């Protein structure tokens, strides 16, 4: 499991709905990623206390309250996937998703891509809701992880039409606009139009996997991404 300074470890808060003020409008249902709230009913086991519902409630019916007993933020420990066969499947999905194994997929909770892949492979997660409930990914800001979760779900072959979780935008093929989706012709066109964005150079550099926020792979590398093998071996050694 990824560790880092400032990682949210315990869920200290949950929310409560004032039935006198709640109009059952459903706005809170629509924006809760783990779907912990439903027309006034709160499932404390999934509420992260993120307060998004509080900010959007038109009648101010929702308030944050301390839990009687704080609970640990859900995570999937390495031990649940870092075993023979499953480890290979997890790293294969990370590579297929074009995610860097060194990268924090969710910057708030610092989930590794392997942990999110394990949610799909080991725990059978089929959508954003499942992944959030199992790993805490996307439980807070959502501004870094959502496109990556969509990409991993697509790489796992999960049909987005069957994903009924609370996305804010149509996640279509799960890929969204991203640098890997650019054809060589499109990259050429964008390079000519916007030379300062270094599109062609970056397409070439990144043609090995996700290294957007990581300098461990500074060079231009072929597919498959050799870092996957290196890190997989590190995990295998750790498991032994």
């Amino acid at each position, binding site marked *: 499991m990824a560790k880092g300074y400032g990682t949210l470890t315990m869920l200290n808060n949950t929310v409560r709905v004032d039935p006198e003020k709640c109009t059952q409008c459903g706005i809170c249902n629509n924006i809760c990623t783990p779907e912990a709230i439903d027309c006034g009913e709160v499932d404390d086991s999934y509420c992260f206390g993120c307060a998004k519902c509080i900010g959007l409630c038109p009648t101010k019916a929702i308030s944050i309250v301390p839990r009687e007993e704080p609970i640990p933020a859900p995570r999937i420990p390495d031990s649940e996937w870092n075993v023979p066969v499953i480890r290979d499947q997890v790293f294969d999905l990370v590579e297929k998703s074009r995610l860097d194994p060194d*990268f*924090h997929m969710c910057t708030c909770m610092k989930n590794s891509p392997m942990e999110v892949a394990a949610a799909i492979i080991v725990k059978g997660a089929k959508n954003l809701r499942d992944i959030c409930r199992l790993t805490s990914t996307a439980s807070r800001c959502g501004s870094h992880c959502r496109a990556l979760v*969509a990409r991993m779900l697509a790489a796992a072959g999960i049909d987005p039409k069957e994903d009924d979780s609370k996305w804010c*935008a149509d996640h279509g093929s799960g890929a969204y606009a991203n640098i890997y989706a650019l054809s060589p012709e499109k990259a050429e066109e964008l390079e000519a139009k916007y030379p300062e*964005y*270094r599109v062609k150079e970056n397409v070439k550099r990144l043609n090995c996997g996700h290294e957007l926020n990581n300098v461990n792979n500074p060079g231009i590398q072929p597919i498959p991404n050799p870092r996957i093998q290196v890190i997989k071996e590190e995990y295998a050694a750790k498991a032994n």
Partner: protein
Amino acid sequence: MPTLQLSKELIHEKVPSPPFQVAPSGISTPSLPRAADVLDDIVSLKMTELFPDIDRAIITQEMDKKTIREVIRKETEKATAHIDLSKVKPGDKVHLLISEHGFIPAGGWAYCEQIKYLDEMIRERTGAKVSLCYSVAGSPQEANDILAPNYDILDHFKGRFVFSGRYEETVGVETDIGKMYLMKKPFNCDWVVHMHYDTPRENHFHRYTARALKAFGMSYAAPETRSSLHSSWEQRTASLVPRVMYESQFVQSKFLFGTILLTSPDGVTGLLADRDFIKIEKEMEKRTMRNFAKWYHVLRHMKNYMVVIDGYRWGDYIPAGGMETAAVTEGFVDMWDLDLPQVRVSGIRSHEYNKESKAYLFNNCWPCLFKSFLHYVPNVYWVKEVEDALMPMYPVDSSQFQIRDNIKIAVDEAIQKYGTDRMIIFNDSYGSVSVSRSLAEHILELVPEATKEADEVLYPKYMKQRNIAI
């Protein structure tokens, strides 16, 4: 050109910190005594004395609200006089799109007065219905909580405002790089006026390209598109997202004009406005990078010092002499150099930070510092009020942080532990910077060389990389 020697006469007595604003929804420290006031041997350096050729501020901390209002109105009037509003018909809905970090420079009053002036000007010239549309990273409630207690802007608009947060209804936009999503509320109108600012903040994401367009991929955009901007493009290419959003048919069909609030290390320096936003964006890059390059590189070259965080806004967005905290935390790389592929180094096994900054000490601050700042800086002290105020909402494993009764105790201990009394205070300052005397002397040593490097090598390189003629 011979490098100059700067005299110690440039070291002045400490100056008061700008007023602290209590954070939205109460998720902040209370307003504690400011570090610059309570710590020993704190002095100040004036930005215009260190860098005499930077643009001068048009308003200062000492000015009263009335004077600020007059100066900003005059400047806004001058900058927008040429704007053609003939397409706007009486009764049309116009949204003034503003974003939260415009309220950082000069306490937010310049932004505030600019907004109020444009509201009056557009209504007077066109008869349109003008509304303020405030988009924030979090929930709409935050917008109210930032504006209501701190500014008179809601009184001015008298109910003509729209608050927009990231988990609301979205609208799909066809762009040159595929379909992306904007928030629906800000664009639910006939015309938009994009009101942004030039502050050198989050340089690791935009690399100071399309800086003033960033809201089209962030505060105006759906979480999925924000995520794409942050995580699905290499840093130098990520500015494509707001650029193509801005250039999309959807946005262009509603785009009335845009404005950019200009700053230098001295403070707010003026305003640019035009229908052609790319034109003023490039002008902004030219001016703002020239104004900040020298100070940025002094910060990058400082050795063996500590950082005190003591301002409103998120931990890594608080300026000292107009430059955000991340200029030191990520000072190991030049975030403006487009020849460097990556500048933020953060991952599962690497939490890179500037090794010359020995410790980070938190006094006053706003939320979100945990997730965006503490990920990678070690040797963190915070006062117990930080723990009390923020931990319930952002419970982290605090065992690695040192919690002390007040900032003075924390600083005294850190000086002993890390063997340096060089200290810089990030306290929302423009015009001057609050530092310990030892760091002031160190900065005076660095300025001549950093100035020479910035003027002769770096600034020309930045402009060339951005295809801007100087």
